Each structure stands twice: as structure tokens, then as C-alpha cells.
């Protein structure tokens, strides 16, 4: 039956081509939406995901990574006492302004980490080392900041919060969701630059657990010890941040809406082609019925047509998507293509095409025998 479906599709090449185009259009749009959304979400939690730490301690009810409030550093010692804790690192995230060479200002996010420890610092450096920001007015800037800050190189100076800071290194892959570039500085410099943090305060405690200890238990003990803080596993903090940006900014809804609209448009296109084709061949399907085929057997031809449309459309869309990843990157967007997500999109495409066959199958079920006998 699959073979017959294929023959029917190949028979009317022009119609099949336009159907394929429709499927590719709809599915590519879904791919792009999902890919860009994923890119944005990865960006929103990029620092959490790449920092070597199992547990994050933040101020109570902090919404996400970027909007955490400072709290007293001495909680550091309390955390250190909890059984199962191997190490605790302090880190700071805060907002600041940078002066561009031409005199304009840009907002930046300052990430302060302990240069000797490196936890919370850059993980992939094009130039320099994480420890280069130690003891002085130094920073590491991500290469993606070039769009906002203008061209820069190691050794350049920039004014951050009215202080001359020298660029000591250039990192890779630290693009923020908020579009404000990340600047990495030493912990102590960050305390000064982000004036609302100040001395004796930190923004994060990043905790590593002892090998073999149960993370859940450590989190519970930390929560008991630090009732005024939020204690979250790395994964929880990451998804909390992603969820915040997804929901609060409405990007989630807008992506979802586009995906759903694409889904329905694809369904309509495939549905109406298959329906037209079914009507066109209704006499032959009826004849098959007259010769003993059951509705189920004939439906298999229709479903196969839908499945072929889905598979070919999906494959072409995937190729289009993979080919356009570079294009998106050139445009400053990150598009993520993941196998697991691809499989979900494949299922969606299948579902889209199979649903579209529904009315055609209904038509087959109720073929009026009279049409067979017309000359």
C-alpha cells in the first residue's frame, strides 16, 4: 500500500511539489522557532550550566540568575559547616555601565569570581587565563560583546562604572539572554564596581558536594541551616531562570503560538492535498472496496501518503535548518539543533500529516457505490 501511495504522489508531481513546499515551510518554521528558543534559553542559564557547582545559594525569592540580590558574606561559613559540602565559592552578578570608545554608554553584567578558584569565571578562553583578572582593575570580555562594545583587544582599556579597566582576556560562548555583555572581573573588583553589592556582601554561594554524598540531603541540610536563603540545585536554578524568561517576557508564548500556527497551517496544506487526491481517486478506492479491500486497507494508502509527505518534508526541513544555522549565527542569533528535539519535531510532523488524513479516511468509509458505476 505504501508503494501505491508513492505512485500516487509521484503521479501528480506538481501538486506533490507544492505540498512538500508547504510542509517544508511549516516544519522549517517550527525548527527555527524551537532552535532559536533553545538558543535563547541556553544563553539565559549559560553561566549556571557551565559553572562547576552542584548547589547555588541565592537571596530569598530571587527570580533568576540575572536579578539576584546581595546578602552578607558570612553565610559562607555557615554553608561550609554543612555535612556533605566539599567547597563553597562566592561569586557576584551585578549590573553596570561601560563607556564605549565613541562616548556612548552600554549596560553590562559584571560577573565577579575568585580568580584563584575560577568558579563562576569564564571556561573557554580565546586569549588569557581566568586568573589574569587577579589583583587589579582587570577584566575578561566575551568575544560576542564586540557588537555592543566595538572592536577590542587584549590590553585595551575601557571605563566601567567610571573606572579604567584593562582587558586581560577574551572568552568564548558567553552570550547573555539579556543582550547586555558579560564582563568577568575578580570578586573583590566586582564588589566595588557593583556599588549596591559593596564590601562584605556576595550574590551567590556556589557549592560543590563531597563525592558520594547525597545531593538531596545536602540541599535539605543547607535549607535548614540557611532559612533566609534560596538553596537550589544547579538544575533547579537553571530551569528557574529559563522558566522566568520564558514566561515573564512572553517569549515562550510567542514561540508557542508560532509553532502552533505553523502546525495547523502544515496540517491544512497536507490535509487539503490529500483530500483532493482522495476525491480524485475516489472511484478507484471504491473499486478496491468492491474487489474486497476493507476501509482499513484503503486507509493505509491514505495514511502512507501522509507519512511520505511527513518524512520527506521533515528531512528537507532538517537539511534547510542545518544549513541555516550558520546564517543565524552570522545574524547574531544562536540556533540550537538537538537530536532529542528533532525527534519531537519529527513526531509533530507525523502527527500533523496523519491528522490531516482524517477527513479523507472518513470519505473512504462512506463511499457511495453508485459512483463506481458511472461511465
Amino acid at each position, binding site marked *: 500500500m505504501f508503494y501505491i501511495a508513492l505512485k500516487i504522489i509521484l503521479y501528480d508531481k506538481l501538486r506533490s511539489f507544492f505540498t512538500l513546499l508547504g510542509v517544508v515551510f511549516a516544519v522549517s518554521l517550527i525548527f527555527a522557532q524551537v532552535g532559536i528558543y533553545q538558543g535563547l534559553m541556553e544563553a539565559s542559564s549559560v553561566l549556571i550550566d557551565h559553572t562547576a557547582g552542584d548547589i547555588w545559594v541565592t537571596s530569598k525569592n530571587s527570580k533568576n540568575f540575572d536579578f539576584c540580590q546581595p546578602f552578607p558574606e558570612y553565610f559562607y561559613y555557615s554553608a561550609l559547616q554543612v555535612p556533605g559540602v566539599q567547597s563553597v565559592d562566592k561569586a557576584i552578578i551585578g549590573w553596570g555601565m561601560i563607556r564605549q570608545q565613541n562616548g556612548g554608554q552600554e549596560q553590562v553584567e559584571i560577573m565577579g569570581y575568585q580568580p584563584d578558584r575560577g568558579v563562576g569565571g569564564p571556561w573557554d578562553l580565546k586569549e588569557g587565563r581566568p586568573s589574569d583578572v587577579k589583583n587589579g582593575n582587570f577584566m575578561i570580555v566575551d568575544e560576542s560583546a564586540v557588537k555592543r562594545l566595538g572592536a577590542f583587544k587584549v590590553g585595551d582599556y575601557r571605563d566601567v562604572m567610571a573606572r579604567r579597566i584593562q582587558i586581560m582576556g577574551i572568552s568564548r560562548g558567553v552570550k547573555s539572554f539579556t543582550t547586555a555583555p558579560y564582563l568577568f572581573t575578580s570578586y573583590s573588583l566586582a564588589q566595588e564596581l557593583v556599588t549596591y553589592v559593596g564590601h562584605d556582601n556576595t550574590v551567590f554561594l556556589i557549592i560543590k558536594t563531597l563525592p558520594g554524598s547525597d545531593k538531596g540531603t545536602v540541599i535539605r541540610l543547607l535549607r535548614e541551616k540557611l532559612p533566609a536563603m534560596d538553596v537550589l540545585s544547579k538544575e533547579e536554578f537553571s530551569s528557574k531562570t529559563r522558566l522566568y524568561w520564558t514566561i515573564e517576557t512572553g517569549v515562550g508564548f510567542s514561540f508557542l503560538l508560532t509553532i502552533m500556527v505553523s502546525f495547523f497551517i502544515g496540517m491544512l496544506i497536507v490535509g487539503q492535498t490529500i483530500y483532493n487526491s482522495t476525491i480524485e481517486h475516489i472511484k478507484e478506492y471504491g473499486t478496491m472496496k468492491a*474487489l*474486497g479491500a476493507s476501509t482499513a486497507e484503503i486507509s493505509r494508502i491514505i495514511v502512507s501518503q501522509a507519512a511520505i509527505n511527513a518524512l520527506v518534508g521533515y528531512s528537507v526541513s532538517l537539511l534547510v535548518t542545518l544549513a541555516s544555522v550558520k546564517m543565524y549565527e552570522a545574524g547574531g542569533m544562536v540556533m540550537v539543533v538537538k537530536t532529542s528535539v528533532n525527534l519531537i519535531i519529527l513526531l509533530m510532523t507525523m502527527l500533523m500529516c496523519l491528522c490531516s488524513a482524517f477527513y479523507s479516511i472518513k470519505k473512504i468509509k462512506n463511499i457511495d457505490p453508485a459512483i463506481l458505476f458511472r*461511465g
Partner: protein
Amino acid sequence: MVPVVAKELSKIYREGSLEVTAVASVDLEFQSGELIGLFGPSGSGKTTLLSMLGCMLKPTGGTLELFGQDITSLDERDLPAIRKKYISFIFQGFNLFPPLTVYENVMLVMNLKRIDPMVADQRARELLEAVGLGKRMNFLPRELSGGQRQRVAIARALAADAPLILADEPTGNLDHENGRTVMEMLKTLASEQNCCVVVATHDNRINDLFDRVVCMEDGRMLPEKRKET
């Protein structure tokens, strides 16, 4: 077993308050090896009767037995199996799948009947050879003449290997010569394969070929005149 036994078989079409009696209380009995002509003017109920005999249409009254099996009491879901086992159709409009080649059209029926592909392939070639289309197996239906298409349909009906063959105006779209060829094939089929072949037609030019002729008028069966042999 007798291929067809119908008693007081009738069909009334209802469309809103309008009732059309297409077949009214028909009694018949068709035997194997017979080529039966079902004559009658247009609108006399021939197609409706064939549809009922072919289990494509549910009668509104009477009983129908095919090969000793009561059909009227069967559920809709059991009918495909009956059709698969006993019945084959030939239509005025041929009803071949345009995207499939001649060969594939014939193979399709055997595929439906789960006949082993090797056996089916052999059979399809033989049948197409027999109807004179051995050299056109890979043609599409649109590349054939009407007479050739009807011969494909006959090959298809034969491939189904059904003991009851129902043909509705099989010569209706054919010229005299092609029509005769087709009818002669059906006659051979009845006599050599011992099939029961029922041909609904109002084509009087082929009158002489039938073993038996039954006539309908306004849904009723006229008294039968047996052909002297």
C-alpha cells in the same frame, strides 16, 4: 453451490420524503458457468441490482444468498471478506488506478488477497498476455485505448479469481468491435472457468452471446425467455 439466489430482493432509495423503488421484489437464481445478460432500459434498476448482488449496497427487503451464505443478515464489517472471496467487478468506466501501470493494476487485486507475490507476478503476466496486452504491461491506463483499458479491467477481474463476476455496461464505452471482443472474453470465462458472469447492459448488439437473458423494467423482472440450445 448456487452462486446467486435472491428472493423478493428490493431496494427503495429514500431521499427526504421522496421514495424511489429501484428494485422491486426480484426473484432470481444464477448458476455457475452461465453468462447472464441483464437487460433493461436506463433507470430500470440494473445497476442497483448488481450493487446488491456485489454486496456494495444493502437491500431494503428480501433475502440474498451467495454460494449458500445468507448475506442479508451479515454485518457491514463482514462484507469486505465476502467480496474478497466471491466477487469481482467490471465497470463501464474501467476504474483503473491512473498512477499505476497496467501490470500494477492487476497486481493490486492479488496483493489485496494476500496472494504470494511470485505467484501473483506469474499470473498477472499470463492474464495480460491472454487479453492481448502482454506488450503493454508497463503502460499507464491513459496511454491505452478504451478497449484496451476494459481488457485490463477484465484481466484484473480474472486475477481476483472470483467465482462471481458482475459487469455493469462493460461495453458501454466501447465501439462495436471492441465490445464484442470483450464479451467473447467474458463468455470464455464463464464456460472455461465455470464462473457465473452477470452482465448488465442495454446493448442489443451483443444479445446473441448470452446463455441466459433476464429483462428488467421499472425495477421488476420480466418473465424470462430461455435460450434454445
